[in-house]
């Protein structure tokens, strides 16, 4: 074989390697284009809209950071931020504790275990709008069952959705009812894939059930818990459907989360720029949260190792 033939052969091999290396990317390309169209494009357009002013529903031109300045001075926005944070903290905490307890309860040999598991995850499978309608009917004072039940027990009439505090509590209750199953499922998966040797060793060494749980199971579950909490936090920050059906953000602004206020600002008040500035701020906040969570997860995995 001459040197020239050898070079040509080598080039062919190189070209084939390049082609082979490119195949996965080419196969991914349609999916990536679709994702870019439905996800990336709206995000970029949203960022662009946040720097524009809209009048009569039409883009009235570039305004720089005016929309961001306006949301900084918008008392209702900050109220919505506060309500959103309060909602996330309370709802996700309750869901985590309940989800953990349920997972611990179910992660053992029980009769009718399959049925119990299916029943527990049922609320999660119902569309959020339907959940809102169901609970609105339950809460509605003249046709629901909550008020008559309270009256029967001699506890007066709570009129759940008519008072700021009870409406907020009612909303948290709906979220807990619907989304505890998600945390339950994630933790259950974590419990079932947990290595049993360290737990059995601890039991053999005389550790009580509580000690095994706090000193072994919980540290081992930490990454799973973190994933569950981060997922729920991101989801809870965007809660919309149930509130839209149940309270529309009221009474007053008691249940007005950022998602509802942004929706109203964009589609009811026709201020797309202002709304997009809010959504970009929320996105930045959630990104920070995710980065922090990933960092925590890494650290926790390192500690476990």
């Amino acid at each position, binding site marked *: 074989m001459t040197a020239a033939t050898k070079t040509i052969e080598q080039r062919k091999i190189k070209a084939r390697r390049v082609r082979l290396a490119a195949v996965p990317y080419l196969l991914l390309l349609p999916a990536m284009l679709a994702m870019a169209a439905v996800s990336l494009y709206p995000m970029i357009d949203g960022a662009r809209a946040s720097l524009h002013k809209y*009048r*009569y*529903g*039409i883009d009235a031109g570039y305004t720089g950071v005016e929309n961001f300045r*306006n949301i900084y001075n918008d008392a209702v926005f900050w109220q919505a931020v506060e309500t959103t944070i309060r909602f996330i903290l309370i709802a996700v905490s309750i869901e985590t504790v309940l989800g953990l307890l349920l997972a611990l309860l179910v992660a053992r040999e029980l009769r009718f275990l399959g049925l119990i598991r299916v029943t527990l995850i049922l609320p999660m499978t119902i569309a959020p709008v339907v959940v809102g309608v169901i609970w609105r009917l339950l*809460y*509605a*004072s*003249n*046709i629901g069952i909550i*008020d008559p039940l309270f009256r029967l027990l001699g506890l007066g*009439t709570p*009129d*759940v*959705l*008519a*008072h*700021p505090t009870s*409406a907020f509590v009612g909303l948290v209750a709906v979220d807990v009812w619907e989304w505890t199953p998600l945390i339950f499922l994630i933790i259950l998966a974590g419990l079932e894939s947990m290595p049993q040797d360290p737990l059995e060793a601890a039991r053999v060494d005389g550790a009580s059930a509580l000690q095994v749980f706090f000193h072994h199971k919980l540290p081992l579950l930490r990454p799973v818990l973190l994933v569950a909490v981060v997922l729920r936090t991101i989801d809870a920050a965007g809660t919309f459907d149930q509130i839209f059906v149940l*309270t*529309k*953000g*009221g*009474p*007053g*602004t008691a249940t007005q989360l950022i998602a509802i206020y942004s929706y*109203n600002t964009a*589609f*009811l*008040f*026709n*201020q797309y720029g202002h709304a997009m500035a809010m959504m970009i701020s929320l996105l930045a906040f959630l990104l920070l949260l995710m980065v922090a969570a990933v960092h925590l997860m890494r650290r926790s995995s390192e500690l476990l190792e």
Partner: protein
Amino acid sequence: MSDKNVKTPKLLKQPLGRRDVIKRGLAGTVALAGAATVLSPRRSYASGAITIGSFQDNAMAPFRDYFVKEFTKETGIAVNYNETNYDTWYQNAKNDGINKTGAYDIYVMDDNWVPEFAAGGIVQSLDKLGLKVNSDILPKGLEMGLWPPKSGARMKDFASAKPELYSLVIIDDVEILYYHKDHFPHAPQTWDDIYAVAKKTEPPKMYGWSARGVKGNPIMMTYLPLLNSYGGNFVNEDWSPGFAGPEGVGALTRLFSFIPYMPSGVASFDTAEETQVMLEGKCTALTEYTGLVNRVDDPSSSKVVHKINMTATPKQEKHGPAIGTFICGIASGSKNPEGAVQFLEWFTSSKTQMQFARRFGGAAVTGSALSDPEAVKKYRWLPAIAEAVNSSVQKPRTPDEPKMEDILGTALNEALVEAIAQKENYDAIAKKHLQAAAEQISSYLKQQGGYF
């Protein structure tokens, strides 16, 4: 049949290379796309068809199911009718108009879309299109389609512009008073009449009043007939809020005076809950739009069939119901504006409106239909609708009205919650919340610009 007799097609015998697959795949795709284009249903304007887009609403049923077909029968112009939910339709119509796609010829709109759609060039001027307005149409309903408004506050950009008709009213939806005949031997005229009967009721067996209390638009629809009747204004001619003075406070205090006689959860009531108590026969009176008229006499949803009468909303200084018409505009990109004009002229003609009233008891837009003896004999609410339209007060005509409504509607809801909790100091509670809303609206309008 044995397998031997089955011939393998030549195409399948040949080994397929990568290029062959790509080539044939491309050819197939092009062929499929071509076939889809040829076979897909397309609108043809050659035949003069028009396309109407609308939001779903029970009040639109006669329009959609009967009159659209009648129009085609009479004129030979085919009508494509597309409807979707309110929010989606609002966005679709707006996008269609801004981009002049020509997918629609007529938009069925809520009247508060008119300022934005007219000022933004989303709908065309009906005057410029040569639409002939039927002089029988009630003036207050007709005015809802003008931009800039004929009366009331005007935005600076349009201060000296001549009002033009951009949309034409097709259903005169307006608030009217529904009252239980067993409790009111005569039609109540004033809020004092309503209150006098309410005081005799014994909740929860019977309530003296029911209302929508949810923040935003629902509670605004409860408050506006009170505010207008007490002589207040949502906004004055100079865009200053007109509800924080004694008239507005008096109106809200009057609403609070019904608290002992209203269902306890009224602050979370929307239309469904508000009207349910009346349909169950547990309420003496309420104000609501005309959509309720058919339900009160429907035995499947009402326990008070033929027991509820209707009249104009009560007055203090004057009657002042809120008006919320269904209104039609012609799309900026309409491909058949002539057909669209013809349809609107036909539907709002006295003859068609008479049919609307006689056959369906609908909130017709012409005076002759609402006072027609044959129609009134069958549908007792028609004169109440006419009276209410004639005394109605329109909301501020600006694209910023929904935000203003949200601010005041939130303050009203907060005030109602506080008043229900305290059961006293109604005057002070009303003043505090109305003042706060007035300041918020003024500051919002200043930030938006174009008002002062």
